[in-house]
């Protein structure tokens, strides 16, 4: 029994000896944790004020309507009425559904078409800018000019181009009414949007191209791969992370499209009305409840698209996997080769 006791104390002490520094360490971890949270709390506070509050306020606002009734003397009844999800029901299935779904499809259509065109053109621009030739600096700078012009200004420029007596009609030798014909106005918006933002994609892709090692290309050339094969099997898989990020950014931007159709074509045009324009139009007519509801729906839609996109394509937006870059690269490269075969 006595021998057991020291053994047990020994065991005990053996347990506590490595245990106590662990406890100490965990104590210091909580200390650090507290310090850390104290240090980031101002940031969190700012985020709560500028991010969380508006989101919640908009959600809350969308549950009310105001200014819908008049009293006996003809004055608007003050205060607001709680309607719950009534506004959303009106928008999705009720009287406002036609306008909402039209704007929804317009937004989706513009996003799909412009981002596809921008990705293709941006890729082409990046490949050109990546080549070594005389005047490369000039080409790079001039490609960026459209991106540098504020959207509102470029929308005005394009409005003049697409005026009934404008340059576009003069070149085409047609009398197209760009601001009133449904398909023509869609084409006008897409043209202006692609013109403006393809350089952005080009720039991001160019950055991706520049990190591709020259040796990979040389090795492929030695193996007898042609230019097309090298592009398809080397450049594209290696530039994919940059391209995916560029496309994601463009998609999120395009889903919020507002100023370009607003200025280029005008308000309340069914053919180009987007979800942001709908929210704006309701807000200017003092229907804050529905405006908040449209904004919230757009937010949900953007969040959903971003989520699906990241899940499907694994966009590495801030390079959280940067430490595993070599491994990842290899994996992607192999996968690219494998699927190509």
């Amino acid at each position, binding site marked *: 029994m006595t021998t057991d006791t020291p053994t047990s104390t020994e065991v005990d002490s053996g347990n506590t000896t490595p245990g106590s520094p662990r406890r100490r360490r965990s104590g210091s971890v909580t200390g650090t944790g507290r310090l850390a949270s104290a240090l980031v709390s101002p940031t969190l506070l700012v985020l709560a004020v*500028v*991010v969380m509050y*508006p*989101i919640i*306020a*908009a959600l809350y*606002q*969308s549950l*009310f309507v*105001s*200014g*819908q*009734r*008049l009293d006996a*003397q*003809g*004055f*608007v009844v*003050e*205060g*607001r009425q709680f309607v719950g999800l009534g506004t959303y029901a009106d928008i999705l299935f009720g*009287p406002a559904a036609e306008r909402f779904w039209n704007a929804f499809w317009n937004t989706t259509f513009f996003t799909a078409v412009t981002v596809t065109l921008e990705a293709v053109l941006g890729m082409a621009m990046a490949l050109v800018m990546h080549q070594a030739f005389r005047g490369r600096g000039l080409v790079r700078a001039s490609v960026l000019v459209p991106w540098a012009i504020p959207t509102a200004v470029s929308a005005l420029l394009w409005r003049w181009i697409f*005026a*009934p*007596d404008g340059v576009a009609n003069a070149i085409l030798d047609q*009398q197209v*009414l760009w*601001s*009133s014909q449904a398909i023509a106005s869609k084409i006008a918006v897409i043209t202006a949007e692609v013109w403006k933002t393809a350089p952005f994609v080009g720039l991001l892709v160019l950055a991706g191209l520049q990190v591709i090692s020259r040796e990979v290309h040389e090795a492929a050339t030695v193996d007898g791969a042609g230019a097309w094969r090298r592009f398809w099997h080397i450049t594209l898989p290696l530039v994919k992370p940059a391209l995916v990020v560029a496309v*994601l950014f463009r998609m*999120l931007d395009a*889903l*919020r499209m507002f100023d370009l159709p607003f200025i280029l074509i*005008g*308000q*309340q*045009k069914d053919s180009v009305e987007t979800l*942001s324009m709908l*929210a*704006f*139009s309701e*807000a*200017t*007519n*003092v229907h*804050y409840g529905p*405006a*908040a509801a449209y*904004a*919230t729906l*757009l*937010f949900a839609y*953007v*969040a959903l698209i*971003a989520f699906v996109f*990241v899940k499907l394509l694994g*966009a590495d*937006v*801030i390079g*959280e996997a940067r430490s595993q870059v070599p491994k990842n690269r290899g994996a992607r490269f192999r996968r690219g080769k494998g699927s190509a075969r």
Partner: protein
Amino acid sequence: MKSLRWRSISVMMVSAFVVAGCGGGGGDSSASSEISGRGPITFATGKDVTGAVTQAVETWNGSHPDQRVRLIELPADGDQQRQQMVQNAQTESGAFTVLDLDNVWNAEFAANRWVVELPKDEFDFSPFLKSAMKTARYRGRLFSVPAYSDGGLLYYRKDLLNKVDAQPPTTREEMREICAEVLELPAAEGMSCYAGQHAKYEGLTVNFAEAVHGAGGQIVNDQGQPTVDSPEALRGLETMVEGFRSGTIPRAAIAYKEQPNKRAFIGGELVFSRNWPFMWSQANADDGSSKVAGKFAVAPLPGITGKGVSSLGGHNLAISSFAENKATALDFIKFYTSKKQQRQRLVKGSLAPTRSALYDDPELQRKYPYLDTLKKSIKSAEPRPRVVNYGDVTLAIQDEVYAAISGDKKPDKALNALQRRLEKLIEQK
């Protein structure tokens, strides 16, 4: 992921800003309907392009050093002016004291108590144009005072009409007959007959209202009920649609606002044009910018079955409920709408007055030969629907009328749909 979240967050913030500042307009407010207090005030108005407004404010400030008026120039675009004024009212800000309201906003501002009721007996409205006074009241109570007026005019090519020995038309049918002859002339090669404002914006509501009134109909009757499903309204809309179909109105005119219409007329492309008085001096410019200087004249708008009726344009002054020094504001409104001030603004800025006598002033008539015609136009003009939710009503009108003139909907279908939408919009109230 983090910056992705940022992205969505920034999206949300943009959306949130759209809906920011919506206190819901509820609860007790600092608003006071009592007109009292003297001291410095502000005057919120559209861009003062002619300098006539600034001149009036300076005159006032010269004689009222302790009750100075500060001029706040809002954007030139009417929608943006309204938006800023509404935002100001929503936040119950006292930044704007005297508001320069487009006369179609009177009902909305009055019903929301954004502007105060004005004491009727402190004004003598007998010299004012009766049509303009209609826009100052809401349910029989006075909320604003008309400061400017405006009416549509039919500009026509006098030189071409003389060649075919025609008088300016009084109906659209006559106009078409004259066009048929004029367009045969070699001098009129490549010209079109007529254009108004047909783009999808407020101007379309103005032109549609004129067509309906010109056919003897009404958009909203005196009891406040929508009546666009009447045969008269159909006749009005069919005339517009037929104009486009037959080519009387050129195809490009479906995108016309005031300025493109003006460019077409002074570029010699139109025989007839419906536009506001502002076009007169630009069309008469002899610096080579106008091809029609000295070759045109104006007439009252032609009707469709009866006589022509213009839509009434113009601006009224009102006092914000949330501002201080309302007694000074009332004095300023009296000063601003006085005969002397209106005359000065007409001389300096060619801004049409709301006092009838000024239209008969021989000296002014020499300066502005269109004045007599404009008076006829304004006297018989009809205001656009005076409803609280005018913004929604005009949008519904633009939607359906535009669908009809662009050929997407048959006129009777469009008007039936419009009737239902207006009933819903107006019944809500």
